[in-house]
């Protein structure tokens, strides 16, 4: 098991090569083989979860091999408390997405599954890389399959081609600046190694001060990294690609986009931003608090925009902006407390909350996108209200918006139940996973930056309102009218959840409940990471 991480990263590539040789007409074989193969990384990631020694902490299962010795680029991978839950999340959501897709994808099947595995490889690679060039390579490798997934399998009315290229160019624009910063770090410090940079920089470190004390270069490099990550997270005002991409992508694509790809940005901030640029990060979180202000904006603006959406999928897409704002607030608070030993507990708390928010948002929003997929597969519409030709909601004589679905709670109780749990987890109901992340973020942030934390709480209220009002009320409450259903769905049959949909959603629901009641295993992982970063 010495090469465990190599197996995890490249198992999807192996799957790609296998599927490549199956004729494209053998759709059943491709589908069942893909689902089967996707369990291998899932099993390996679960093994990693239990094999990691949290007591020791730090990077384990490290592998180091020369790759391009001429410029000191190495294949250096390792897993720590931050990456292991995210690797597990990636493999879990990929497996569930593949199960779901094998029942819903009917067009260009072979390509779909090939691209999905390539995407999985890119995501694993980012979470496990400890070399900046390796990190960058995996970071961008994931772009291409996602671009194709959105463009090919997107719904024509959601402008998939536009959304796909927008997604691609936004991410690329951010990451090329990051590439320059990576090269800058290398030529100043002679290494691409993330661990070496994180530990060796500083006044007394063997690598000396960051950029030899040149603060302008340090600030430029910090922003280059930060913007690249902020686009992915996405932080207001870099979020505009997200609603388009999430809405246009096929269900499984949205799940992976929201569930994992956004976390790449968040992961980058904690793996590279905090350890390598702590002073710059602190400066813009505390002395000139641009980052917490943007985080607040994301939380409140994102939630308010959700209130105004009439497209269920777009609403959930915007909710990601709001929810990842909590993540950003947690990281900002942790960064602001850098170097103050009296606040190190609060910083660790905020950092744990932020990391948990990444994981929980992954399972919760992943679940929500699956649930939107469930209704969309039946109704072929996601509009919450009956709309006129301009797409504006129609109103009845009392000037009330006429819901399009309405009363699905009675017609499809199973769906209602699963959706309700997921929606409540999303709004942070205690007892479900979403609560703990927000609790930890605010618990940490209140001690460090009370005003920001206080304002951030507004977001929770707005979140509760759009989830209860826009989703639960418009979709599930009220009277069900078969006539209206026939009208909006053009005569489709309304069935409750089918077994493959239950199979995809139950694991997520179990994790929401499980980590809601007993979040300790998750906290332990993230705390192993946070203690190492903030402990000393």
């Amino acid at each position, binding site marked *: 098991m010495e090469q465990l991480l190599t197996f995890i990263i490249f198992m999807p590539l192996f799957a790609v090569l296998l599927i490549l040789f199956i004729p494209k007409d053998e759709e059943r074989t491709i589908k069942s083989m893909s689902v089967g193969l996707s369990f291998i990384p899932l099993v390996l990631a679960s093994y990693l979860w239990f094999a990691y020694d949290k007591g020791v902490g730090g990077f384990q299962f490290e592998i180091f091999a020369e*790759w*391009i*010795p*001429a*410029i000191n680029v190495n294949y250096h991978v390792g897993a720590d408390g931050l990456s292991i839950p995210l690797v597990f999340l990636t493999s879990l959501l990929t497996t569930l997405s593949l199960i779901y897709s094998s029942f819903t994808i009917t067009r260009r099947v072979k*390509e779909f599954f090939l691209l999905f595995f390539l995407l999985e490889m890119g995501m694993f690679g980012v979470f496990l890389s400890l070399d900046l*060039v390796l990190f*960058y*390579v*995996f*970071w*961008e*490798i994931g*772009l*291409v399959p996602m*671009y*194709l997934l959105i*463009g*090919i399998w997107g719904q024509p009315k959601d402008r*998939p*081609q536009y959304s*796909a*290229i927008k997604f*691609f*160019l936004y991410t*690329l*624009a951010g990451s*090329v*600046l990051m*590439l*320059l910063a990576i*090269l*800058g770090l*290398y*030529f100043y410090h002679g290494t691409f190694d993330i661990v070496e940079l994180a530990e060796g920089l500083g006044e007394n470190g063997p690598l000396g001060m960051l950029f030899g004390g040149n603060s302008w270069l340090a600030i430029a490099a910090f922003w280059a990294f930060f913007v690249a990550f902020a686009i992915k997270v996405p932080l207001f005002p870099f979020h505009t690609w997200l609603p388009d991409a999430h809405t246009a992508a096929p269900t499984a694509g949205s799940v992976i986009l929201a569930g994992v790809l956004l976390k790449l940005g968040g992961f980058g901030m904690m793996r590279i931003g905090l350890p390598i640029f702590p002073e710059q990060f602190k400066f813009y979180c505390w002395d000139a608090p641009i980052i917490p202000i943007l985080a607040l904006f994301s939380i409140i603006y994102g939630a308010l925009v959700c209130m105004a959406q009439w497209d269920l999928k777009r609403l959930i897409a915007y909710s990601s902006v709001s929810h990842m704002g909590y993540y950003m607030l947690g990281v900002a608070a942790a960064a602001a407390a850098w170097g103050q030993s009296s606040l190190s507990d609060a910083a660790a708390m905020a950092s744990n909350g932020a990391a948990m928010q990444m994981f929980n948002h992954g399972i919760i929003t992943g679940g929500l996108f699956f649930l939107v997929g469930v209704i969309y597969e039946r109704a072929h519409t996601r509009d919450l209200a009956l709309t006129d030709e301009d797409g504006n909601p129609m109103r009845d004589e009392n000037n009330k918006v006429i819901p399009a679905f309405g009363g699905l709670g009675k017609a499809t109780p199973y769906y209602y139940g699963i959706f309700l749990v997921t929606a409540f987890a999303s709004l942070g109901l205690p007892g479900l996973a979403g609560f703990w992340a927000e609790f930890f973020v605010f618990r940490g942030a209140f001690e460090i930056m009370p005003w920001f934390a206080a304002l951030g709480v507004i977001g929770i209220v707005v979140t509760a309102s759009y989830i209860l009002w826009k989703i639960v009320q418009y979709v599930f409450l009220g009277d069900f009218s078969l006539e209206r259903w026939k009208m909006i769905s053009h005569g489709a049959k309304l069935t409750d959840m089918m077994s493959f949909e239950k199979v995809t959603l139950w694991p997520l629901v179990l994790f929401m409940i499980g980590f809601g009641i007993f979040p300790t295993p998750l906290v332990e992982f993230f705390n192993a990471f946070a203690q190492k970063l903030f402990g000393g």
Partner: protein
Amino acid sequence: LTLETFQLLSPELILLLTGIVVLVVDLAWRDEASSEAEAPRANKTIWVPALALAGLGAALLATILLWGTPPTTVLAMMAVDPFALFFKIIALVCVMLVILAAVPYLQDRTRYRGEFYALLVFAGLAICLASSAIDLISIYLAMEFLSITSYVLAGYLRGDLKSNEAGIKYFLYGAVTSAAMLYGMSLLYGATGTTNLSLIAQLLTFGEESIQWLAVAALVPLLAGFAFKIVLAPFHQWAPDTYEGAPTPVTAFLSVGSKAAGFAILMRVLFTALPSFRWNIGWMAFLMALSIISMALGNLIALRQTNIKRMLAYSSISQAGYIIIGVICLVLDAEGAFLGVNGSLFYLFAYLFTNLAVFTAVIAFESATGSTEIADYRGLVKRSPVMAGVMLVGLLSLAGIPGTAGFLGKLFVFGSAIQFNTTQTLVLALVGVLTSVIAAFYYLNVVRQMFFEPADEGAEQVALPAGLKVGLVVTAVGILVIGIYPQPFLDLATESIQMLGMVF
């Protein structure tokens, strides 16, 4: 003349022989049958290019065998050093792949195919000579040799007006820049009294100040001549029309082989003869301006193109702007290796496979459908998955996406700009990365057509002849191998410049 001389010049001699044999065989087997009776001709069309390929393969082998011999000069006109050999490898691989793609392309377009292969072999020979030339006379002769074969090749399709336009336009621009370059050379000769590059360097360094001013004056027309071959803006005006009108295999050759020859001569002249004219108003500032203009203009205009050959012409301008960054940002490290320029060489090697992958796919598509419009590529993935797949890999490499050779090329040249660490070079790197984001848009536009748009109702599968399939697979594998395991190629590039007699 000794036996050793023949050995040192073996690649060139083999090429010369191949070219002549191809011409003779074509002439001897020219059958009387009319164009309708194609059957006996069809046989010959396989044998003539096969002969050319065999000759090129032998020359490639000879070049590889020469690798490792200590750098020497032949007749004070030619150098046989790793630098020259590196470019010879590029030239030979390029011509081989172009011939492979040209066979089906020429099938229905012209009856005179034999000379085409002979001309391509001679063009390859010209690049080999150019990469070895170390004297102003041999440089000029090699450049003219390359130019004249290229003019003929660009205008090869006599019946096609666009091809005629391509040839004439290329010729007119070429004649002017060639004259300008010659003027620059005469100034250098006038200042120093010699045409030998290293002697020029010595005389200029230790000469009077007035002589040095002559050299500065010579720099501009010289660089204009090289920039014309490399296709750097603003000396690019011929390129879009010529690239569009020329037979597509010739376009592929111009965009890779001819460009490489320009780079070889540029580096040789600048590093050997004019190293002391780098700073202030020297070549560094001049090239920096050309690089920025090329990256910006090439990428912006490419956005609006609807013809894939025209788009690739502008893309080729911008790529030249990227490659030259390594030359601009050349530094000497502690171990005596010239960094930066090795990035340029690596980039050229990556570009060889990348651009030829895309062009082979374009040629394959054009041979089958007769179209070069980007819109006609819609649904290609259904009509020919292999073609679309290789095209995707090639375009991603052009865009510089990791996992491909193009990414590492960009990594190394931008790295050299960062390493140089002056405000100007940082700006250069910044312009470089930002324009490469713009570039991604138009490269992906082709991907969009191929993968997102549905094929027309009843559109047939696109036929893919064996030769093209080989070309596509070889180039795609090349891109991925260089992109994933670049170390040997980087070593090759670094070794190639180590012994370039520089006087820094």
